[in-house]
């Protein structure tokens, strides 16, 4: 056959001369690996309209003709009920506007699970489109003594059948040649439509015995490893150890890189101030835009570390085991084993944590996990906790080395977990009631991860974050900078720089907002200065510390001790009583436990759920909870201590 337009028979729906081929297959069949092998790095990732199902399409690499490959979501049946499965059936029916019916189907089945996978092949062939079957993981089947007669399978199905090993490129070139000319594919058999599942699998068993797919030896290596990793005692210990390492990695190993980014952005800002003429434009550039870019980049080390770890654990096969081990506990509050790692990651930062929720296949549990994720005590709350606890909680020993300050800190962490789990249970019995929940997990064979795939996956996640969330985070931090700096107080050379900064802040729009907020936050024991801090903390929670430093004219935001003294000495100008007392500090701490004052989290939440509705709901719910909890805390603390 000669390649090129001359040989191309006119295909139905081949809009713009392009051949559209859809990839159909179950999860864990190597479908995505195959997709990557066929399309290279050219995949365009988006969403199907109105749902949060990822749409991935790429062009066939090295083809003599424009062939697009659409990677449909993994599915076990063509008429399923989850959003993913419904997308598959709607695409195949042409029921999605702007999404033409694929010209041909590339069906993917895993050689080691053919006795299940052929059921889906049967359903796909019912559609009557030109079809080709790629049987993946033939190397693994071979290693387990499988002697698959693929030509016999091709005769039985009446279509081309090709054995491939996606990550090693075996069979890929031949498959590509076939994909260029779907109009030449044979189609000699069509299954009887409307067969029941029982009939379908009767047929599957028949075919499998004919082609020798019935008996594969056990994967003994996987069995041996599982005997340890899923052991009632050892399994739990390994789980705890892996999670500890993961937590440690995200929590502290990212710190040097984050400090470096912070330092570089800060240096660039100071340098800008030094070389550019002093004006508000320079301030906006250095303190608004540059700082905004910094606030996006600062997330990258954690995202890179977390996603590298997640992809390694996933490719090796441990992620599924971890979910298997912890599923029961998560099930108590209506979550799944797969929710555990995303929530754990939120201790470092909710942004990568929420992104990690992509690994949860069931839409209901995925949404619940995303919505409760911001309750987990992220590292941005830590500076706030440290400042307020050091200032107001007495350093009294309780028992041995355990002190009141440490117990308070632990209590705040515990409160966050309780709020997350309680809210998950609440969501499950209210908003998410009736939403489809799918629990289905396979424990894949243990495999060595491949560096190329790993790099591509991690790079993809990081790029998606910077491009989609980064732009909005940057925009909001510029807006917040404007609020905190416009209008400015008239410059007064008699003032010290710290006093001038204080005056500027007092004149700013944020101060106006802080004053306007005062009636709403006075019942919590907060004055307008804390109100300004709360507005500023929308950029990132820890910003309240530097904002308070500015309000109290401490001068250097890193002068922690100076700030401690300043807020302890602050007195109400009318009553002369201290502004910050233990009840106020406790109330503010509790507010920080509950409130969703983090623009980045809100943006990522919108990105990952595909709608602003969910972050809006989470923000209101968490704000209401924060207000109530702070109110109760303030009243109770005032009653007991004041």
């Amino acid at each position, binding site marked *: 056959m000669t390649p090129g337009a001359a040989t191309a028979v006119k295909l139905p729906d081949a809009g713009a001369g392009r051949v559209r081929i859809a990839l159909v297959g179950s999860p864990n069949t190597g479908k995505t690996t195959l997709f990557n092998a066929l399309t290279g790095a050219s995949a365009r990732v988006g969403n199907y309209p109105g749902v949060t199902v990822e749409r991935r399409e790429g062009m066939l690499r090295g083809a003599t003709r424009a062939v697009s490959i659409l990677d449909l979501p993994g599915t076990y*049946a063509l008429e399923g009920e989850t959003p993913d499965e419904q997308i598959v059936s709607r695409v195949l029916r042409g029921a999605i506007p702007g999404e033409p019916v694929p010209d041909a189907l590339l069906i993917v089945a895993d050689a080691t699970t053919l*006795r299940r996978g052929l059921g889906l092949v049967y359903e796909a062939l019912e559609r009557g489109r030109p079809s080709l079957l790629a049987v993946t993981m033939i190397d693994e089947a071979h290693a387990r003594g499988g002697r698959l007669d693929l030509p016999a399978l091709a005769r039985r199905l009446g279509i081309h059948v090709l054995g491939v090993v996606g990550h090693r490129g075996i069979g890929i070139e031949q498959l590509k040649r076939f994909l260029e000319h779907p109009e030449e594919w044979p189609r000699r058999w069509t299954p009887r439509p409307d067969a029941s599942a029982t009939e379908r699998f009767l047929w599957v068993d028949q075919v499998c015995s004919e082609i020798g797919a019935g008996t594969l030896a056990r994967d003994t290596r996987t069995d041996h490893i599982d005997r340890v990793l899923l052991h009632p005692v050892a399994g739990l210990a390994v789980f705890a150890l892996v999670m500890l390492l993961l937590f440690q990695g995200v929590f502290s190993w990212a710190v040097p890189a984050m400090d470096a980014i912070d330092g570089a952005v800060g240096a660039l800002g100071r340098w800008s101030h030094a070389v550019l003429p002093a004006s508000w434009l320079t301030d906006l550039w250095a303190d608004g835009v540059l700082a905004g870019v910094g606030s996006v980049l600062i997330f990258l080390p954690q995202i890179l570390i977390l996603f590298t770890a997640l992809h390694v654990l996933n490719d090796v096969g441990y992620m599924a085991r971890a979910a*298997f081990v912890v*599923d029961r506990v998560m099930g108590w509050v209506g979550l799944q084993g797969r929710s555990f790692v995303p929530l754990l990651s939120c201790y470092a930062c909710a942004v990568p944590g929420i992104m990690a929720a992509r690994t949860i296949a069931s839409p209901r549990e995925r949404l619940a996990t995303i919505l409760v994720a911001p309750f987990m005590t992220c590292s941005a709350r830590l500076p706030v906790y440290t400042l307020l606890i050091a200032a107001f909680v007495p350093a009294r020993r309780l028992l041995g080395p355990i002190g009141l300050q440490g117990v308070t800190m632990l209590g705040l962490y515990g409160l966050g977990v309780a709020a997350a789990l309680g809210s998950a249970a609440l969501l499950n019995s209210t908003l998410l009631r009736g939403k489809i929940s799918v629990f289905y997990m396979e424990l894949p064979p243990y495999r060595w991860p491949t560096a190329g795939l790993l790099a591509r996956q991690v790079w993809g996640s990081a790029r998606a974050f910077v491009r989609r969330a980064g732009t909005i985070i940057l925009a909001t931090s510029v807006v917040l900078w404007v609020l905190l700096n416009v209008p400015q107080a008239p410059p007064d050379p008699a003032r010290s720089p710290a006093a001038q900064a204080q005056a500027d802040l007092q004149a700013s729009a944020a101060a106006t907002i802080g004053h306007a907020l005062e009636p709403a936050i006075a019942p919590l024991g907060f004055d307008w200065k804390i109100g300004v801090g709360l507005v500023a903390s929308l950029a990132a929670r820890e910003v309240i510390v530097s904002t308070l430093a500015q309000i109290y004219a401490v001068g250097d935001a890193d002068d922690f001790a100076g700030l401690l003294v300043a807020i302890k000495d602050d007195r109400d100008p009318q009553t002369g009583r201290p502004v910050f007392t233990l009840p106020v500090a406790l109330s503010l701490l509790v507010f920080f436990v509950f409130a969703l004052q983090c623009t980045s989290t809100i943006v990522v939440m919108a990105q990952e759920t595909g709608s602003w509705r969910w972050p809006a709901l989470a923000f209101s719910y968490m704000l209401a909870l924060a207000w109530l909890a702070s109110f109760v805390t303030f009243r109770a603390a005032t009653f007991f201590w004041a």
Partner: protein
Amino acid sequence: MTTGGTIPLTALPPGRRGRLAAPGPGEELPRRLRDLGFVPDTELQVVRRAPLGDPVEIEIRGYRLCLRLAQLRGLRVRVEEEGA
């Protein structure tokens, strides 16, 4: 252990094989399970339970999958002869 009768799948001890019994009259296997190959007379085995007791890993049709006990409620199996 009876050979003619059936026991709940959730009571099948790990390592023992059984065959999925046809559902009673007027009953149906859940659609999702049918799509996964849980059709009457299919041989299956509970491979292991999770360290905390739930979910369970089941071998069926030459592959393995994990399901929660709650999803398996109502499923009954005929137990194969010991040593078979």
